[in-house]
């Protein structure tokens, strides 16, 4: 069945994907004294900075909710958005980065999307643990709905993979895609509920912003992790279907042009 082909291919190449992911995770912090401490320090510093800015410098924003809850909200949004932006920036250059793999060895180039995505999700996972510890320290509880997080992360991962395949295929042909991302992603940031939540906005804008699936995922993750509520089931199902469609379309697009790509990079 065609709908499961991407998973079968990835499973077939699991040893390779695992080996390269291990390499990427290892080499990122090699040569630094503190190594993995940075992976934890970076999100922690960011979290403290946002708490500071929005509690002391701009307290108006956080009128109705506690400061730490507000910081948690922002951080939750940033984890998801940073993951998206890291992949969106990187994807168009991925095949160029791995040119020697793709051209000189029997390397399944579609696996590069899995490798890049897994790597990004590992770092997001570290930030997520920092967030949980932060919530535990400041709010003294964690909602039980946290166990449902994988159900939101899974379709989100499919969405990311689809986007990576699409951008990486397109980026092989033209470097404009990389430049385009540099101008689009910061604008996307404002169209995503990171520094605000949907209920802080004028009601007539919200439906438009909800078209941005990344924002919906942030909203659902906040429900699960910060508020201990279940996300709207309809929104969830729609997001999952859209994500799966993007996943399949991205894969199909990439595989369609895969053999041409080898000759152009």
């Amino acid at each position, binding site marked *: 069945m065609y709908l499961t082909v991407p998973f079968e291919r990835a499973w077939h190449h699991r*040893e*390779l994907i*695992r*080996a*390269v992911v291990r*390499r990427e995770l*290892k*080499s990122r912090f*090699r*040569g630094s004294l503190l190594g993995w401490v940075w992976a934890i320090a970076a999100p922690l510093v960011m979290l403290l900075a946002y708490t500071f800015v929005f509690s002391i410098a701009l307290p108006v924003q956080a009128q109705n909710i506690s400061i730490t809850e507000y910081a948690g909200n922002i951080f939750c949004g940033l984890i998801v958005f940073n993951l998206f932006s890291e992949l969106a920036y990187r994807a168009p250059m991925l095949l160029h980065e791995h040119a*020697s*793999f*793709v*051209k*000189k*060895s*029997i*390397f399944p180039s579609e696996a590069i999307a899995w490798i890049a995505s897994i790597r990004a999700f590992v770092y997001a996972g570290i930030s997520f643990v920092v967030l949980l510890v932060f919530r535990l320290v400041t709010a003294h509880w964690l909602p039980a709905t946290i166990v449902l997080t994988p159900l939101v992360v899974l379709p989100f991962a499919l969405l990311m993979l689809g986007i990576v395949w699409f951008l990486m295929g*397109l980026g092989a*042909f*033209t*470097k*404009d895609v990389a430049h385009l991302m540099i101008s689009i992603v910061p604008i996307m940031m404002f169209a995503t509920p990171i520094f605000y939540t949907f209920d802080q906005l004028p009601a007539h804008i919200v439906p438009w912003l909800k078209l941005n699936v990344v924002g919906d995922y942030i909203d659902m993750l906040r429900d699960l992790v910060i508020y201990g509520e279940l996300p709207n089931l309809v929104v969830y199902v729609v997001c999952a279907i859209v994500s799966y469609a993007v996943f399949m379309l991205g894969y199909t697009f990439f595989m369609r*042009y895969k*053999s*041409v790509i*080898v*000759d*152009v990079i």
Partner: protein
Amino acid sequence: MSSDVVISCRNVGKAFQLYTHYNDQLKQALLGFWKKFYNQHWVLNDVSFEVRKGERIGIIGRNGAGKTTLLQIICGITTPTTGEVKVEGRIAPILALGAGFDGSLTGRENARIGGAILGLKRNEVERRLPAIAEFAGIGQFLDQQVKYYSTGMVARLAFAVCAHADADILIIDEALAVGDEGFQAKCERYVEEFARRGTILMVSHSLDYLRALSDRLLWIDGGKVRAFGDPGPIIADYRAAVLGQALAAQA
């Protein structure tokens, strides 16, 4: 395809599309049905040959004749524009030594990734690491970062990984020229021994080496098969053709 034919190329052609502007590639991909944005250049044209199990095939030809493209097509890295390629068995290509190596990782870590690319499982690679280290013969450099390696050391490690990949078909592109004589002798012994169970395709400009090691020679000239058969006469013809041209150019 008879049972002992492991590689069969039929009317294989490969056209590269030469673009004047970088972005014409994208235009071609998106608007190709409407207009042509490139000039075609045929690197390979109507190449047909069959290789039987256990054969050692040498491939010769001048620079740009299409040898590397042919190997890439056989490996499945790029697809032929026309014709058909059938390959039976697992291929270990040595197209560019250490191409997938990451300078910031140690030789051992790179060997693990190299093994995974060739389709080995993690525990299989682990089990073979001592043998790979022994074959490469680079001593404690195996645990040093690859960026401190010399060219020859990279070549040794890359060849050692491919040599232990349990492949049915070994494809070597100009790879053995960089090692020192001791290592070249080791590779030659390996190639001879490998031919007992597998098939070898090798591109080289060292004619003496090919004369000694190959059963048949494939001479690619201008993207076409110029000759395919006994190494002795083909090498003589090839020498005459290449030197003749060089002399003609001098005169």
